[in-house]
């Protein structure tokens, strides 16, 4: 665990952890608001947005990509509303139709355009390129204290760290109104909480997390992290603050275990090559959710009253 680890594995590990946490945090509220599908939709429509931004600018750079993804998110919201109203289709179905169509459109665009010179293809859209985030400037652990080496960290890492901080700060600042409006929107309205702005802000936070995570870890992790860690965390506790804490633990655990299993797991079973870290991280988060369903303390809340009555 020396120089190799710092150079090859530290950045992807941190990237995976930060991306997972950034997505899991807003995911908690999306799930409690029965809007988990929105996270799914956002992570899909990011692709056509980024492709269009690339086609217009001819380069992979942060701001055009962010704007493209944001534009695609707006287009998706308009499309979902239009389908709901004109087609009189229920919201879930309208969302499903919109984001699969837009994602498919993104794939077609990608195939038709010349993106061979850059890291932009269908495979990267799904799995990202976590393993390629190598910190070339690093020599060993002492590089963490070396400004010159730190300056050469892959830029994706700084971006996701910044986004994660923004999301944590936003969550801390708006914790109370978010909690109240998620539990009881009519009541929140009655005490003057701007519920529309809050729920828009939540979707924007999810979109920012999705876009920042997308180019490094791909949409599979994004989709999995919006849902799996918060859903597993809900089974661990009956308190919102603890649920959020558990979701962060599960997200980080998925990222670390997934990365390690992807790199070394196949070798343990005699296989030659490592598997996709992003795929393995998403799989681990699913396994954690499965285990939580089987063993977590608050998995059967229907039966809870009798049990709680016996305790008191």
């Amino acid at each position, binding site marked *: 665990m020396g120089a190799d680890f710092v150079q090859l594995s530290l950045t992807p590990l941190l990237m995976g952890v930060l991306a997972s946490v950034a997505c899991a945090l807003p995911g908690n509220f999306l799930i409690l608001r029965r809007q988990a599908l929105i996270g799914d939709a956002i992570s899909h429509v990011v692709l056509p947005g980024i492709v269009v931004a690339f086609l217009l600018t001819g380069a992979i750079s942060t701001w055009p990509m962010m704007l493209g993804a944001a534009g695609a998110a707006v287009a998706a919201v308009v499309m979902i509303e239009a389908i709901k109203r004109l087609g009189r289709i229920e919201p879930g179905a309208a969302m499903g139709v919109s984001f699969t169509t837009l994602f498919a459109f993104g794939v077609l665009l990608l195939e038709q355009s010349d993106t061979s010179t850059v890291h932009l293809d269908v495979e990267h859209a799904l799995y990202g390129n976590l393993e390629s985030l190598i910190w070339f400037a690093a020599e060993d652990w002492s590089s963490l204290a070396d400004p010159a080496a730190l300056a050469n960290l892959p830029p994706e890492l700084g971006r996701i760290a910044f986004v994660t901080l923004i999301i944590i700060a936003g969550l801390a600042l708006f914790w109370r109104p978010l909690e109240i409006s998620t*539990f009881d929107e009519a009541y929140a309205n009655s005490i003057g909480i701007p519920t529309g702005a809050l729920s828009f802000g939540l979707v924007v936070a999810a979109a920012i997390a999705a876009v920042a995570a997308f180019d490094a870890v791909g949409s599979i992790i994004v989709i999995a992290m919006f849902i799996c860690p918060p859903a597993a965390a*809900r089974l661990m506790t009956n308190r919102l603050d603890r649920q959020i804490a558990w979701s962060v633990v599960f997200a980080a655990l998925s990222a670390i275990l997934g990365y390690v299993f992807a790199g070394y797991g196949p070798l343990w079973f005699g296989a030659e090559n490592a598997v996709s870290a992003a795929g393995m991280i998403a799989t681990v988060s699913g396994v954690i959710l499965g285990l939580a369903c089987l063993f977590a303390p608050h998995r059967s*809340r229907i039966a*809870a009253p009798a049990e709680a009555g016996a305790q008191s």
Partner: protein
Amino acid sequence: MQMTSETLRVAARSDAPPSAASDTESPLHIHGLTVSYGDSPAIFSVDANIEPASMTAIIGPNGAGKSTLLKAALGIVPRLSGTISIFGKPLNEARRRIAYVPQRASVDWDFPARVIDVVMMGLYRELGLLHFVTKKHHDKAHACLDRVGMSDFAERQIGQLSGGQQQRVFLARALAQNSDLYLLDEPLAGVDAATERTIIDVLKSLKAESRTIVCVHHDLATITDYFDHVLLINKTRIAQGPVETAFTAENLISTYGGRLATAHIDQLSLPAA
């Protein structure tokens, strides 16, 4: 940690809004209120004037727009036309004087929160975004729980409560708001007899403190026992006034039409005309 209701009354008094008892303006004045969902109006040009320190039941058949009236008065659903004034002021200047209790079935009780967490939501105006919860806030919340007979359940997850207990938690949250006008949407729907008794006792004690209560209510048999005013609506206002003059067989038939059999009306303890 348990406080008696007497301590609560002292606590509630000490920070009661200074204007609480001295108002002559109507706590809730509604003029020409029309709300529409889609094509047809849910309520049409409703006028209502709630008396200070009164206890008013809003009654009418299913779909008459009773809940919509409350929600529109609070700005929760948009109104097509009409004006709302709260103690003579526009809604947004008077929000802090209103406590609203939505229908119990309107929220997901599987939400990860304890009873005390929900009551704390009633202190949002005091706590704001970033104030830390102190012992003072905890004591207040516990006192409100005590007043509805739920202090033993403070740490319980809200999904583990019976319907009546959940309704009492909602009332405790409204008490924590320490408001002058209480708007409650079907607070007695589907609750046990003990809860009904507790809720009515609490509402009557609020009235005794010169606060104003407005309830959407569905049980015509208890109107004369519980309320002093009624507002009868069925899309439009049919009648409003003190129970003695407005809660009449004639008005009930106008409100409910054929749905209310004459035999049923005979069984109600209508005020002597």
